[in-house]
């Protein structure tokens, strides 16, 4: 398919702006760019059709089943888009006087309050723009806590299980910490002995996802947070998997001190091809003075917006966060309410267990028993015996019109495929998908060579990623340059 730049023709364009109604101000050539921005010259029709064609070459939740593990690709309700498009939300300036943005502040304080109840936390900030940004914010709360206790220099180690998302260790380093990775036990959970051996006077905290990335609820969770606390560290909850437990079990009750949520996973806001997201961060009361400024929670006790936060970690983003994402998430929470929130979690877990059961007919599960909202399969044996990899299965699924599970994660499972069906799929969809997963398995085992070539029916065949990294072409350039 052609690029926008290859569709450009000199002299083509649109008439978007009126003539200027004041005298033109001319900057000296010393201040001016030498040439006009070499953007493509296109008609509005060109632009509109170009993106319609691009849309056909993409795949979203609205196109079909999307069991991408760890990403919670649930249906994105359309009412969320409608409320986020209300002029009262889209057309307000972030620096308007408080008296003219009471509705926006109420959106923030209501969302904070409801998310506190869902997580069992005492205070919340909505400033972080995504999950990893929330992790960063949470890490800063931990850093500030130790710093103000005079232990900032001493407590610099963050413990992260080897099953964790890559963002966890990367976050710890951004917070000026060093990472202590601990291996998971036989059952995929935290190895208590390893944890006991790892904690000490240098422990700043532990970062943990529960249920973990294997889809298992760690039964020792209370003991885990206790071990960390007794060592003087804090426990950080990575909320990537909250969809399994919301309304059923709360991170705050598990002993966690702070938590981040992914509004774009658990709370149904769309992923937008990679963002924008929302990364709310909650904490217990003793950490709340350190939350980013401005603080809107009732804890400030100084009117709706408190700019005077002397102990705050500072700002992590301009203004108040991804506000329209928060509007969508609030719309969702209000729609589901106290009945719908736990019901969604339970059906997410039901769907996962049902799909797991169906796929167990052929696929080897990394761990048996009841899973939470997701489960991990391993193609290790198939890979050794027949050369059929997780990649081959994933790419074969593309030919069947299904978005594949997450590949090669978590790192501790070889040839992993991690599936998360979510609560918004019907049994019919799960059954059809299961049939296709099983058919793809047989097909690949019967003819591994053909599986290596798949997909055959997508927009492109397998791309040469080595060439892309070795000889980076990261922008279009006109032929003569």
């Amino acid at each position, binding site marked *: 398919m052609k690029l926008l730049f290859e569709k450009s023709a000199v002299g083509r364009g649109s008439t978007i702006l009126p003539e200027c109604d004041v005298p033109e101000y001319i900057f000296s050539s010393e201040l001016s760019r030498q040439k006009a921005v070499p953007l493509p010259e296109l008609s509005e029709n060109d632009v*509109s059709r170009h993106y319609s064609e691009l849309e056909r070459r993409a795949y979203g939740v609205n196109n079909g089943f999307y069991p991408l593990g760890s990403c919670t690709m649930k249906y*994105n309700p359309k009412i969320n888009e409608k409320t986020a498009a209300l002029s009262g939300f889209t057309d307000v300036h972030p620096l308007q006087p408080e008296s003219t943005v009471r509705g926006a502040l109420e959106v923030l304080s209501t969302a904070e309050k409801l998310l506190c109840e869902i997580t069992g936390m005492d205070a919340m900030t909505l400033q972080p723009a995504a999950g990893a940004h929330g992790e960063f914010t949470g890490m*800063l709360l931990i850093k500030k806590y130790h710093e103000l206790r005079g232990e900032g220099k001493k407590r610099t180690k963050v413990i992260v299980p080897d099953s964790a998302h890559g963002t966890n260790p990367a976050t710890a380093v951004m917070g000026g910490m060093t990472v202590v990775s601990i291996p998971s036990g036989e059952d995929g959970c935290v190895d208590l002995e390893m944890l006991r051996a790892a904690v000490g006077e240098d422990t700043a905290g532990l970062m943990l996802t529960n249920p973990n990335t294997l889809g298992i609820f760690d039964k020792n969770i209370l003991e885990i947070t206790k071990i960390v606390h007794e060592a003087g560290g804090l426990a950080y909850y990575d909320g990537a998997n909250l969809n399994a437990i919301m309304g059923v079990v709360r991170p705050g009750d598990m002993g966690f001190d702070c938590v981040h949520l992914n509004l*774009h996973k658990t709370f149904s806001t769309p992923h937008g091809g990679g963002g924008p997201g929302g990364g709310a961060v909650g904490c217990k009361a003793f950490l709340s003075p350190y939350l980013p400024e401005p603080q809107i929670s009732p804890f400030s006790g100084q009117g709706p917006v408190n700019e005077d936060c002397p102990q705050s970690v*500072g700002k992590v983003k301009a203004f108040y966060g991804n506000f329209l*994402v928060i509007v969508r998430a609030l719309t969702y929470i209000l729609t589901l309410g106290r009945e719908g929130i736990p019901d969604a979690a339970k059906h997410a877990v039901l769907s996962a267990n049902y799909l797991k059961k169906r796929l167990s007919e052929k696929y080897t599960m990394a761990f048996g028993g009841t899973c939470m909202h997701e489960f991990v399969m391993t193609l290790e044996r198939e890979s050794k015996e027949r050369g059929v990899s997780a990649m081959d299965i994933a790419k074969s699924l593309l030919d069947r019109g299904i978005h594949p599970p997450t590949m090669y994660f978590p790192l501790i499972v070889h040839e992993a495929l991690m599936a998360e069906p979510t609560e918004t799929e019907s049994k019919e969809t799960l059954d059809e998908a299961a049939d296709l997963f099983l058919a793809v398995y047989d097909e690949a085992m019967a003819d591994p060579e053909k599986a290596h070539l798949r997909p055959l029916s997508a927009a492109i065949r397998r791309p040469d990623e080595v060439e892309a990294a070795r000889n980076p072409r990261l922008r279009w350039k006109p032929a003569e340059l």
Partner: protein
Amino acid sequence: MGHYLSITEEQRKEMLEAIGLDSLDGMYAGAPSDLVLKRELDLPSGRSELGVLREMEALASKNRVFPTVFRGAGAYRHYIPAVVSSVSAKETFLTSYTPYQSEISQGILQAIFEYQTMICQLTGMDVSNASVYDGATAAAEALTMCRDRKRAKALVSSCANPEVIKVMRTYCWAANAEMLLIPEKDGLTDKEALRAMLDGSVACVYIAQPNFYGLIEDAPTIGQIAHENGARFIMGVNPIAAALLKTPGECGADIAVGEGQPLGMPLSFGGPYLGFMASTGAMMRKLPGRIVGETSDSEGNRAFVLTLQAREQHIRREKASSNICSNEALCALTAAVYMAVMGPGGIRSAAQQCASKAHYMAKLISDIPGFGLRFSGEFFHEFVTECPVDTGKLMATLEENGILGGLPLPDGGILWCTTEMNTKDEIDALVRLVREGKRV
């Protein structure tokens, strides 16, 4: 209650039976029983779509939308062409994930590749990433790109946007890295002070162009001073101004970052916005976040993929250049559509109108006694005037007339902003009100 479930009661029973359980609660047997909530959450009861719509509309109506806006300071009200909103609302763009599965994500990948190209064209830089959270975090990430063991200190112009400075400060504190402010002189970065601050420990120098006061910095000279001392030069640029002013590339910048909101995103009480980041080829592998590259598929067809992933957290874990994962992809797509439909002439016209109107208005306001321009330097579409009356009262008068006035500064001045959205009539009306307000 509202819900988005697709499983019927009958099917629920069948599914439970298939997995050998008799209740949904049985699935949580792995969690310690005293952790499982014995009560309902203290949330309102769920409700219908129409019910929720009414509630959200009631909240939205508690906000005041000003028909006329003369406030910028980091968030700018520009015209958004109709086709921009139409494209960015397309369901597949909205509901797809990060394009890991490139074979079925060529549409998203190509859109980002085109965005990266247009950011390079706008800034005059070699490479761009696929976006970060906003302009402030882009600036903070740029400082991180420049740090190494020997050179860890960042020098940041005190004339940059205070929100951006605050975020940079947080990121530097996080990394245990030093950040110092370069003093201001006549509303501009003090070049002599900068010269005195530079030594072998300085990793980079950051300035905003135009700066917080709307003034145009002597970027080429500042870049030269930084480079002479072995420091990198980072420019935070307004993308609309970049259509007229000397590009970061022409100014010798190593990294150009900025807030992309003016490129087709509504004000939205501060977000979601778009952090853009571009650099020289030499710094390509230091860029954080996703980057899309062109390659070919096994049949030789053009193909796009996420590339240079050895920089990223999911591969490198604690050795990654940043922890960023989700970015602002849909906002990047929005900016690309905006630039595509505006074209070279349209974006130039938008920039030119912003500047022309600001200069028209600055002349009229500064003619009012006591409202003189605070600084004499060249400015783009924002400028600071003094204010001889109570700014709160003046703003209230403007608000009564449907106008969101300039931003009152802590020291009593006012930071005004115009864009192509402000008509001559609006400007004339504002000036009349300010003149009358002065008499009050």
